[in-house]
């Protein structure tokens, strides 16, 4: 975007000022995320750049916070070699939290993506009745404040069968709170809106006559779905799944309310760390999570481009 030739001098000045303002806003967006990366290598327990760090003295930098991440909760942090790593794998708190986050994230993503994709296919059909109202209900977990959702889930998951009493059925069937299943279902609920939004967006550009063509050529509905529809909407499904995974991977409120001590996830461990005694070890976790989100963002961007290419939508 260039200044038009007929611009007055004042407009030229404004144009450059505008570019500077935009630069500052971009800086505001990105600086907080970038700045924690060098700080996580601080050799001192401070949250600011020490003089030695500023003079690029190697002494000022260290990996001690990364090491403390690993050793926190270990039984014998002074061991070496194999004993150290197996101890870390089995006992280190952050490793446990990462395992939990991944188990819960993957399982809830599978539930959310499966149900969400199916529903998006139905919602994209022109015949769908009550489309608007149903869509509003399915998107609502994203809109309703998390604290309200978590509070509702807290009571429901403590005794999921309470309402069966209305039908005269037994009202006690165990609890879902404090179990993996409970947290997974809760996170699936929170991830579903993202799957619905991305998959229906992909289906907007989907040419329904392709399905009819397949049917007229003798394919049954299942073959049509897996051979024609699925390959075309797959990029949308995958980015929806990634959204659902990130939602679960980053979720702390529902975990605080319904998870037990066995379902300690990374965000919950971070939450505890921030609330009690914030140490630069939190910055080390944050750095790892930033790298993780860069990887996810790259994947989603590549998928989006691929989706545009195969659907013939070329960017301007």
């Amino acid at each position, binding site marked *: *975007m260039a200044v038009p030739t*007929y*611009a007055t001098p004042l407009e030229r000045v404004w144009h450059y000022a*505008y570019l500077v303002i*935009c630069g500052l*806003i*971009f800086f505001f*967006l*990105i600086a*907080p*995320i970038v*700045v*924690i990366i060098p*700080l996580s290598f601080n050799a001192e327990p*401070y949250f*600011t*750049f020490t003089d030695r760090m500023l003079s690029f003295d190697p002494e000022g930098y260290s990996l001690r916070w990364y090491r403390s991440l690993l050793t926190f909760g270990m039984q014998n942090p002074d061991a070496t070699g194999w004993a150290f790593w197996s101890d870390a794998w089995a006992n280190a708190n952050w490793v446990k939290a990462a395992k939990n986050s991944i188990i819960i994230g993957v399982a809830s993503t599978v539930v959310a993506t499966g*149900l969400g994709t*199916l*529903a998006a296919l*139905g*919602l994209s059909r022109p*015949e*769908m*009745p009550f489309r*608007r109202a149903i869509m*509003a*209900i399915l998107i*609502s977990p994203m*809109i*309703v*404040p*998390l*604290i*309200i959702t978590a*509070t*509702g*889930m807290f*009571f*429901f*998951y403590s005794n999921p069968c309470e*309402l069966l009493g209305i039908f005269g059925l037994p009202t006690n069937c165990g609890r879902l709170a404090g179990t993996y299943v409970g947290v997974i279902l809760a996170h*699936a*609920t929170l991830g*579903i809106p993202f799957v619905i*939004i*991305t998959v*229906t*967006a992909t289906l907007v550009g989907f040419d329904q006559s392709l399905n009819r063509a397949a049917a007229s050529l003798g394919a049954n509905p299942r073959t049509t779905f897996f051979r024609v529809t699925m390959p075309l909407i797959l990029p949308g499904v995958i980015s929806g799944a990634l959204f659902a995974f990130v939602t679960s991977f980053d979720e*702390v409120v529902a975990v605080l309310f319904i998870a037990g001590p066995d379902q300690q996830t990374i965000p919950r461990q*971070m*939450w505890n760390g*921030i609330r009690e005694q914030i140490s630069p070890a939190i910055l080390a976790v*944050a750095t790892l*999570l*930033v790298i993780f*989100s860069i990887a996810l*963002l790259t994947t989603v961007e590549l998928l*989006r481009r691929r989706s545009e290419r195969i659907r013939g939508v070329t960017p*301007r």
Partner: protein
Amino acid sequence: MANALDPHAAIATTAGGLTDGGLTDGALRTADGRPLVRALARSQSLARRRAFLLVLPLLAFILITFVVPIGQMLQRSFYNDGFSAHMPQLSQWFAGNPRGAEPDEAAWAALAADLQASAEARTIGIVGTRINYDVPGTRSLFTATGRQVRRGIEPPYQAALLEIDEDWGDPALWSAMREASSPLTGNFYLAALDRTRADDGSIQQVEERQQVYVMLFMRTFWLSLVITVITFVLGFPVAHLLATLPMRKSNLLMILVLLPFWTSLLVRTTSWMVLLQQQGVINDILTWLGVIGPDGRLQMIYNQTGTIIAMTHILLPFMILPLYSVMRTINPSYVRAARSLGATSWTAFRRVYFPQTLPGLGAGALLVFILAVGYYITPALVGGSSGQLISNMIAMHMTDTLNWSMAAALAALLLGAVLLLYWVYDRMVGIDNLKLG
């Protein structure tokens, strides 16, 4: 009828052929002789049912794990049987005697009997907790009296109970017990609006130093508005730049918007804590530049400033993305036309460009506002006491005071506001147009 490509014509022709077979009512029919209208309706209802069946599993899942639990929770805001279920005889006395009636010996006898039964069943704590919401400090009165009454109590009950603790004669306590004697109550909503019922049943404001909720609601809406306006001011130029740059460059810059969007909320909140604290990076830079003295370090966190800065940063992408997708579709020749007709660049922007961005602005502003109103994590971590929002109060009632009915009443009011905004969003923007990245 001559058009062979028209399916209706083809069917009509077939139907015409069938009329020779004795069907002479003149209605259009399909090849197998059914009336066309009915066949079409059947096939459409089949298609509708198929589409609905695809959505049904998810709809059932959301209803069971999301809608019903929230409904169940909200029920607590107007239904609390903590007192009435465990104090049946006294509740009956209240039902039979009008408000303002002095408790007679029958009432005291009912109270003593209920206390005794409740202490036996170990439910006296629940009863005390329920009354404690309205008259603070009475939980121990119930449990302590319960212990004594369990050992035995002799009539006259009024004198006996007053001897155990003279607080039993307090009219405020009796008024609270009367309110609690019916499980259905609007009192939690009254409390959520800083109102209370006087002894004679009239509604009045609570004392000034106890008025917190209305102020918190106002603060929540005010801060959300401030944050929405700031995200608009910051988001508009950026969205405009991204929309007018060539695709290659704008895709590159878009990463700077999307990376924060994909980064964990806790990570972003943590980095603001690190940047804004008194010994943090920003204060260090300002001191080094000499803007502030070493003693004048700014308090930018654990107050409203912290909440506003961190939430603006977190919600900014939700403003930029809808604005960007609308601005991308604006034809630049309109502005050029305006300029060529003599408009100054400011007029062209104000009268031609800006009105076209309004759909994106509406979508972004509503989304940011809706998300800000319900924010919990960021204010809890960086808000201190002056930056707490209504969500934090709900969490406090859930986990610290355990006044779940109060939490539910606050949640119901907040949810009502959010759903109203959601409805407006759906009317104005349409949920289908919600886009992510």
